[in-house]
């Protein structure tokens, strides 16, 4: 294997380790974009290299060479990939493709279901910016945004009762930020990439955290007070813990994704509260540049590997 072949397979592992520190250090909006674009590039690069390894092994089969008009002698003299490695890569690529198709299918059906049911919701008449809010009579404490056209904000009466008017505004501003900035697209993209390459699961989790932080900062800006936003989240989370809304499963941000071990440090809500109580996030150019460089190396390596294989095939074809 050449450097250009293994780099795109190794860099996602580095990104997996770097995702959470980046998510906590960069401004949430920047971090969300960075991690989402990185997920796509890294998933594409790693799947691309798997395909190249499988192809490089395939050209060692005389029948394939004959069919493609290539000289087997030229192929063998150019040191193509090993056959066992190629079979392994092909199997991994097939698994990645299956998982990606399944992820697209699941996400699309879930979005369609959400859309159809939000359409059937009566107009609650509570226009709140980009999304309409629906108040559910439920003593359980819960609030969420259902993506759709338009997105809908659902708030339980238990949640409203747990908060004072200023805190309700923070809650609505937070949910409006989710709806208005289409955060579900970022989480969907992250999940698709993580399905294709499970090494990217930590990036998907980090993106889930980043969109919450993004909405938190927008809510704090709308309320004009970061401590107020922090207190609202803490109050709502404690109220929700003592009076959870009825539902079949109560998962964190990206439910069905395998969760990183909870033992490591505080959970998502305390980290969000702590971030709001600390200084406002500022752009750290060095971190950003390092992250972009790492992802660019993975992408360019995969392109380089593809160029090499293409050149080898052309040589073998002209030698036939």
């Amino acid at each position, binding site marked *: 294997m050449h450097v250009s072949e293994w780099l795109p397979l190794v860099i996602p592992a580095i990104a997996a380790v770097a995702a959470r520190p980046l998510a906590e250090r960069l401004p949430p909006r920047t971090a969300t974009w960075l991690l989402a674009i990185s997920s796509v590039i890294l998933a594409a690069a790693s799947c691309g290299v798997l395909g190249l390894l499988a192809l490089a092994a395939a050209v060692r089969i005389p029948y394939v060479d004959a069919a493609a008009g290539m000289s087997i002698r030229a192929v063998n003299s150019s040191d193509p990939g090993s056959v066992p490695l190629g079979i392994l890569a092909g199997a991994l690529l097939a698994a990645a493709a299956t998982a990606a198709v399944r992820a697209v299918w699941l996400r699309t*059906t879930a979005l369609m279901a959400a859309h159809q049911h939000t359409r059937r919701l009566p107009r609650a008449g509570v226009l709140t910016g980009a999304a309409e809010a629906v108040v559910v009579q439920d003593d359980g404490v819960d609030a969420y945004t259902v993506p759709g056209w338009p997105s809908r904000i659902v708030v339980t009466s238990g949640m*409203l009762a747990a908060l004072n008017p200023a805190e309700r505004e923070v809650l609505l501003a937070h*949910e409006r930020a989710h709806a208005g900035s289409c955060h579900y697209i970022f989480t969907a993209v992250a999940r698709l990439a993580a399905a294709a390459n499970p090494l990217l699961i930590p990036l998907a989790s980090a993106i889930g955290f980043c969109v919450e932080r993004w909405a938190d900062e927008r809510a704090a800006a709308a309320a004009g007070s970061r401590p107020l936003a922090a207190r609202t989240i803490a109050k709502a989370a404690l109220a929700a813990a003592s009076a959870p809304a009825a539902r079949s499963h109560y998962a964190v941000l990206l439910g*069905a994704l395998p969760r990183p071990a909870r033992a490591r440090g505080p959970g998502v809500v305390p980290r969000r509260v702590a971030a709001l109580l600390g200084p406002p996030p500022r752009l750290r150019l060095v971190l950003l540049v390092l992250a972009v460089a790492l992802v660019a190396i993975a992408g360019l390596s995969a392109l380089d590997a593809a160029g090499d294989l293409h050149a080898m095939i052309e040589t073998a074809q002209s030698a036939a």
Partner: protein
Amino acid sequence: MHDYDDQGAGSSRRAAGELEAAALAVLQASGSALTPGQVLDRLGGGLAYTTVVTILSRLHAKGVLTRLRSGRAYSYAPVADEPGLAARRMRGVLDAEADREAVLTRFVSELSPADENLLRRMLAQPDSSG
């Protein structure tokens, strides 16, 4: 992109929407029908009585509130939880979807016991009481 800082032509419409949300929240929380005067008391914030009447009648026109005559005025209550029923039905269907949790963005996710303690300590800090 819908920015909050984007206080342009839409701001008065949004303000009306927020008032409707606030009025509906007051009625949802109260549990009994309220007159515009009572809603005004609970909303606070220096609103005019006529504004509250306008908001409530608009919500009534949209089918969100029912109204009953009480003396010379009307009193208002949320419609027999029709939006609530529909939203609950929606949640039931989404519960069946494997991808539901990833589709919804929830305001607060679950807490571990350690998280709860941490949050209580954070709330107790004087600088976090805003």
